[in-house]
Structures are given as C-alpha cells and as structure tokens.
C-alpha cells in the first residue's frame, strides 16, 4: 500500500504541493486529474524522489521512502514512466527493455536477475504484451511511432517489476485512436496487481479506466472519490470534461 501523508513540495519559493494526502492499494488504478500546473507531475516526481518532498511522509508498505534517493526508491519497486516517454532514442528496443531491469540486474530490485535466461524470459513477457515491440526489437527506439514509444516506455518500466507504477501523461501527443489503445493497455495492467498512479490531462479517459480519482488544484487535493462518482460530478464535468453546466 502506498500512503502519502500531508506532503508539501516546493521549487525554490514556489509551493507546488501543499499538504497532499492520499492512498492507493495494489491492483488499483488511481487517477490524478487537474489543470496545467496543478501539481500532478510534481506529485509523481515527489513519490519517485526526483523532486524530494519538503515536508510530510510517503510510505510504501509501511516503509518510509520520503527522502531516499531516486535510485533507492527504484530499488524498492517504484517505477516511473516519465512525461513525453523519454525512451532511449539511440538504443535498440531490446536495450531499452534491458535497461528497465537495471536495478534487478544489479541484484537490488525484486526479484533479481541472475542470468541471461531470466532476462530473456522477462523480455519475452513484455513482447507477449506488446507484440509490435518484438517486431521492432532491433530498431532504434527513436525510429518508433509515438504510440510504439509509449508502449516501449511502459514495457521498460514493467521490466523493473514495479510495486508502484507511476504513469505521467501516457496519452500526451498521441493520435486519438492510439490513445484508446494505450488506455486499453493501462486497463490490462490491473492484472499484474500493482499500484498504478495515472496522471492525465485527458480526464475523461483517465476517469473511465481508473477505480478512484483525486482532483488537484494549485497543489491541493480538492476532491476525491470513486472514479465513476467524480465523472458524474457536475463541477468536474464543467471544469475538466468540457460539458456545459446548466
């Protein structure tokens, strides 16, 4: 279980998160929605240790991870799919996936990878989920289409066997048809029994796939609840789903 207690984060003097508290359980997809600059990405970066929290506590299965380095947090099973995918453009698809298991190959992450065979089997598991990646195995990641790159970015983070998967704007800059595929994939990720935190601008799709949701506004959580309830809320419909209130 991931617990976030009263966390505040700031960039210099600018407060990006103000006393955020939330929780998420394995097998659950939790969406964070909000406008630009509401603090969604900051919250993910705070969890992954890239932008450490100024105050408050973050606990993963009861263990405090608040001020650990990003490497240690990854070792504990928190994997982030960064905004704009950030695949390693000059490396092959296979190398990208191999790098996803970086900490496991060093014997830090769980379960460790001790030989080439285990690594190979793990990569095959990802290929089974994303058959297109197997076809592109030897191609440089930079030559993939946007949707394929997003699949690769997700596949790469799954190679780390995440206990917590942080997805930052997976639909960003993708064609509508591809966006549907990506959300289909996210829906399937429920089966791997991981805590999934999904940050999205596309609030409609995010609330459709999620179990629960939190709404962030200027660094504060202003609303929380089951995703279906949030999607039905008139205020949210007006602010984030583009429906005119009467």
């Amino acid at each position, binding site marked *: 279980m991931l617990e976030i207690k009263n966390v505040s984060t700031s960039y210099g003097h600018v407060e990006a998160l103000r006393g955020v508290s939330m929780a998420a359980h394995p097998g659950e997809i939790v969406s964070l929605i909000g406008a630009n600059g509401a603090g969604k990405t900051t919250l993910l970066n705070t969890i992954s240790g890239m932008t450490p929290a100024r105050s408050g506590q973050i606990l993963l299965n009861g263990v405090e991870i608040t001020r650990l380095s990003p490497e240690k947090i990854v070792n504990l099973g928190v994997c*982030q799919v*960064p905004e704009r995918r950030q695949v*390693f453009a*000059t*490396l092959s698809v296979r*190398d990208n996936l191999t790098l996803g298991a970086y900490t496991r190959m060093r014997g830090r992450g769980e379960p460790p990878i001790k030989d080439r065979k285990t690594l190979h089997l793990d990569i095959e598991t990802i290929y089974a989920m994303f058959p297109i990646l197997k076809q*592109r195995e030897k191609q440089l990641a930079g030559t993939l289409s946007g949707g394929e790159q997003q699949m690769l970015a997700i596949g790469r983070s799954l190679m780390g066997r995440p206990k917590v998967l942080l997805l930052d704007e997976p639909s960003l800059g993708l064609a509508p048809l591809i966006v549907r595929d990506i959300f289909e994939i996210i829906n399937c990720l429920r089966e791997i029994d991981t805590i999934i935190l999904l940050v999205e601008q596309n609030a409609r799709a995010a609330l459709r796939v999620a179990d629960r949701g939190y709404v962030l506004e200027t660094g504060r959580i202003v609303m929380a609840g089951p995703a279906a309830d949030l999607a039905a809320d008139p205020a949210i419909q007006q602010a984030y789903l583009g429906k005119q209130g009467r």
Partner: protein
Amino acid sequence: MKRLLIARLGSPNLIAFLIMALGLAAAPVFIDNNYIITVLTIIALFTMLTIGLSLLMGYAGQISLGQATFFGIGAYSMAIFSTRLGLSPWLSLLAGMILAGGVAYLLGMLIFRLHGHYLAMATLGMNIILYLILTQQVDWTGGPSGFRGVPDLSIGGMTLSTDTHYYYLIWFFALITIALSLNIVNSRVGRAMRALHSSEIAAETLGIDTGRFKLQVFALSAAYSALAGGLYASFLGFISPSSFTINASIKIVLMAVVGGLSSIWGATFGAAAILVIEQWLRTAIKSLVPGASGEQEIIAFGLILMLIMIFMPEGLVTGAGKALRARIARRKPERAQPAGG
C-alpha cells in the same frame, strides 16, 4: 583478467582486434624506419587519450575540453615521482594514473553540476590551471623550459631504450585500453552510459545513479590519459608544459569527432587519421606549393577537417560503415527494412 578483457567482445570486434594486434606486432619487422615507428607510437598514445574522451563524450554524453590536463598530470607524475621522490618508474606510472583519476573524481564532483557549454568552459579552465601550475612551480616541474631526464621503463631487468621497444610497450597498453573499453561499452555499464546520454531523466527513473556514472567515466578517462602521459614522458625523456595546453585538448576532441564519437574503433582511427594527415601535409604542401610554410599546412588541414565533417558528420568510422551499408542495401533492395510506422 582474461575474462574481463575478452568475455564480452563480440566476434567482429574480436576479429578486428586480433588482426590489429597481429598487424602491429609484425609492423616493425617490415618497417625499417624510425620515423614511421615513432609516428605509430604517437598514434598509440593519442589512441588512449581519444578513447578516454570518446567514453566520456560519445557514451556518457559529457563534454571535456581539458583532457590534456590528465595527460599532463600523468607525464609530470612520471617525471617527478621517479626522480624527485625516488619511486620506481612503473610505480610512478601507476601513481600518475591514480592521481589523475582522483583529481578527475574530485573536480567532477564540482563541475558535473554544469551542463553543455558551461561544462566545456569549466574543463577548459581546468586545463589552464594545470598549465599555470606547470609553468610556475619551477622547482618541481622545471617551469616553461621543461623537465629533462625522465627515466626509461624496464621490464625484467631489460631497460627499454630504443624506439621499437617503446613502440611495443605503448601499443601493448593501447591495445589493453581498446579491449577494456570495448568490453565496458558492451556491458551493463555501457548500456547505462548510453542511456544517460540519451535521456538523463529516464535513466534516473530506472534507478541509474547518473551522477556517480559521470564521475566514474570521467575518472576512467583521466586514468587512460595519465597512462598515455606517463608513457609519453618516459618515451621522450623530456617533457614541457607546451605539450599539455588547451591545443592538445582540442586535438584530442578533433580526433574523437573525426573518428566518430561513440565508437571505440572510431577513436582509434580518428587518432591515426589526424596524425597521418598532419605528417603527410608537412611534405605534400611543400611539393605542391614551393616555399610553403606552416601556415599553408594549417589551412589545408582545416579544409580537410571541414570536408570530413560536411560529408561524414558522424565521423569516419560510423560514416564509412553507413555508406557501406547503404550501398549493400541499394544492391539488394528486397532486403531493405520497411520504415517504422
């Protein structure tokens, strides 16, 4: 050690490596010309320097315009430790490598906070500081007029004295450097380095300690440079600060770029190409333009570099490889891969 050196070399690399080693071993038998042997020895020295920079720039994506700093630290460590402090020449060589690696690690902690142009500036500054120390600390370094009497290395009681001895010794170390580096870039560490070059953010989200990696690669490149420096000092027996200026650093960058960054073979080939072109121009320009001086040489050299960069911006090795593949692909169009959709 053997496993470390050859375990991960893929077969094309291994074959290229063996051919090169055999060719170099046989060369002095056929070449009875001290000048050519000396040029080949200098190529070996610059190969070590360029490979260090290639690991740093081409793989880890960090620029350095100050590699000659560590070249100088290695050379002067060899000179000072072995004469003033009474260490054996081999220990002095090792001490120089450790010192350069340590200096790089500590300086790296300060300057790797910087990126891009700012990092380049900082490494330039590092080189200038070394130059000042070398020219000002006359009691230790001999100042601008240089340091005389660097002792020869010896192996099992045999003192290395001829150019051919040094040719073998220095190429032996250069080949070890090549093998070790090929191994590094084809390992987990190498993959992590290329990842860091490609996207630092993503590398961090995968648990790669990017900061430590940069430092380690920088320290390794410094140790390579110091190895070259120590061998160089012993080979010539005389060193002066003018060999370790920014000009030398820029020459190393040129070699890495011309050969092709992010290729160990490129570094080797780039070092050879630049030195051969330089030497060749010295005679070629004189026969083309009677009464030509050093200035015409520089102009011709510049033109050649520009042409290489225009037609093979990825460097000679990568560029030639691509051109070759394109040619094969044209001949067998049915084999061509469809572009990613």
